[in-house]
């Protein structure tokens, strides 16, 4: 939506679209039908990616969807214990989640990425023994590369913990410890911060 009143449904993102959109740089224009030209692809790649006959043009709405998908995948986070996995494999919201305690809330390891876990299997057996399979089935933030790409701050006298991502500048996650309130939101220009390693 451009004005908060009229909403239009975006098509879901496919892997191809995400791969194409990752190459685009620069700000969004604000016009969903704006067309970008794909920069600098060799003719061979173009054939592989687009099949026959299509021209390398990406519409802004596709780029928008791809960016949303990337952001969710990369930095969409939840506190530990908010979702549980039943023995049958399905993941539910944990209605008994009472919030993290203050000490837990300050640690990065008590927040998980809300996507398919990538690092879980590579942990050592010792670490795996400590995991509680119903709540610890996702990647924690501790091992994000590069280290330190999250800032943890307590606001409002320690009643709200705010995590900000430095990889996608503008992604903010908040949680009120010992309550069920948490959430994340993104306000920003929609560009990945590729200079992160230089800036730390």
């Amino acid at each position, binding site marked *: 939506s451009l*004005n908060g009143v009229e909403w239009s449904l975006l098509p879901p993102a496919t892997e191809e679209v995400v791969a194409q959109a990752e190459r685009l*740089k*620069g*700000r969004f224009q604000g016009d969903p039908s704006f067309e970008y030209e794909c920069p600098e692809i060799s003719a061979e790649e173009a054939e592989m990616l687009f099949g026959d006959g299509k021209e390398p043009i990406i519409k802004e709405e596709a780029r928008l969807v791809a960016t949303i998908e990337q952001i969710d995948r990369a930095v969409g986070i939840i506190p530990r214990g908010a979702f549980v996995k039943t*023995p049958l494999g399905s993941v539910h919201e944990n*209605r*008994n989640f009472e919030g993290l305690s*203050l000490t837990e809330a300050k640690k990065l390891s008590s927040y998980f990425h809300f996507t398919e876990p990538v690092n879980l299997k590579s942990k050592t057996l010792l670490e795996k*023994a*400590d995991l*509680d399979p119903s709540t610890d089935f996702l990647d924690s933030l501790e091992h994000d590369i590069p280290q*330190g790409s999250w*800032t943890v*701050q*307590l606001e*409002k*006298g*320690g*009643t709200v913990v705010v995590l*900000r991502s*430095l990889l996608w*500048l503008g992604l903010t996650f908040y949680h009120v410890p010992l309550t069920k309130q948490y959430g994340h939101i993104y306000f920003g*220009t929609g*560009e990945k911060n*590729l*200079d992160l390693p*230089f*800036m*730390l």
Partner: protein
Amino acid sequence: MYQSYAPGLDPYQAQEPESASQTHAVGQDPYQAYEHGHGPYQPHEPGYGLYQPGFSPYDDQIPDPKSRMLAIQNAKAYLLKSSTTSGLNLYDHLANMLTKILDEQPTNAVDIIENISKDVKWAQFQKKMDTLRDEHEILPTFEAAEQRKALFLKANGEGDEELEEDIGETPLPNVMETAFYFEQAGIGLSKDESYHIFLALKKLISVQPIQTCRFWGKILGLEMNYIIAEVQFHEGEEEEEAEEEDIIEEGGKGMGEVEDEDEEKEKEDKPPKSTYEPPPVIPKEENGTGANKYVYFVCNEPGKPWVKLPPVTPAQIVCARKIKKFFTGRLDAPVVSFPPFPGNEANYLRAQIARISAGTQISPIGFYQFAEEEGDEEEEGGGGRDTCEENPDFQPLSVAEMVDSLSTWVHHVQSILEQGRCVWLNPFQKSEEEEEEEKAEEPDELQQEIGPPLLTPVSEDEGIQDIPAWTAQLSTDLIPQYAVAVLQSNRWPGAYAFASGRKFDNIYFGWGHKYSPENHAPALPPPVQAEYPSGPEITETRDPTLEEELAFQAAREEALAAAEEEEDEEDVEDDEEEDDEEEDDD
């Protein structure tokens, strides 16, 4: 299926040698319900209510007698297994839980069963750490509240009388009003925080002799954030610090002169003196002019003491342009970067603030005008005017006009040149004494740098690639009568300006970095300097090999033989050859 259940003997016999829990009274029937785990129970069986079909983890077990016994044993063993994290086991936990339920008899036990379970687990710990836990939890919030409380206290005694006089012209900015206007555009901090900042600024003013004050903005950092206030002191208040710095510099120069004299006295063979002159240090601008026109105070949170940032030097600005680092939130943190930043985080912060101010502080056209002094224009050469004052005849433009074209906005802060200053200074003109001594290499002539003059309209700002430098919007399309014109900067994301009638302001909320669509490429280290000039006199040549020497000898003998025939000319040739030989043999 129920045969083993009714007499209750077989399962007991199977369990007795293995069980860890002691009691096997009649009340143990509910436990058995968990272990059997097959088939729905008839309503008359005890344990029906506790065990709803479809939720059993053992539904898929084979209802076969022998394997059933094995399954029962396995199930019980599993229940008795201790958890590695807490040392409890499910068996005991369930026992405790059901004991508690039967003791307390709560209504609707099945609905709150999970909470009961949790409370039972909590009860394990409560006895040991009761008082300690309570104390620990209160501390952080309590401390923060104490700090903020200091803000809310009024200044002591003297404050009361002065308040009445100063209400007319207080340097305190109306932060809440500014926050309201920015909120129309969706920018700003929460009301709580704005109010706390308001009170913190009030405290700052009561402590320092301040003429004008403005809330500049907030810069986010890794561990803590910075809240920044831009102030101008009353004239005459700032000279103390400047004097201290001059004294330190002169002391340094005195030391240098003494050392030179000592060296000249030692008339020994010294290694060649380096002819390298470091590029002259460009002096910083005076406090109160140019990049140092305003003084900035920062604090991490309202309630914490305000810290004054040191004035910025051109070298720091030039270096800050080349690096891009996050702020940590501690002013004394070192800035590790290449090229090495001359200073710590306080200096880096000040340099970024100077760049942001120079690039994004804008006002509606006509609000500021140049002071009317004719003589000054000639003296300052190409630099342009550097002060401006409020125009008492300011006629505000309508909000729609402010948004339509960017030429209705102008910069009211001088832009910073490449050199790092606002007013260009030729570093080689300064000290005539130095020029007389070192005449070996004449310095290259620097071009005078000219930046856009003060009060340039914003429409002349360069965009980055295709993006204009500023994006203008009305705060609302629905109520144009009360809309506010809002400008967002695209070069410094986070810088905003609003205007509505006679009111306008600038603010910054962000991380403190410039926007560039290209990735940041750190400067490469400079090439390794040559230690010495390489020329033919230093370069080694290869010694002639044996064949070459023999060949040379043979050639010489031939020449001698030929020399006997012609006497005059050959003498000259021999001499030449001998000279050549001597050089080669060396």
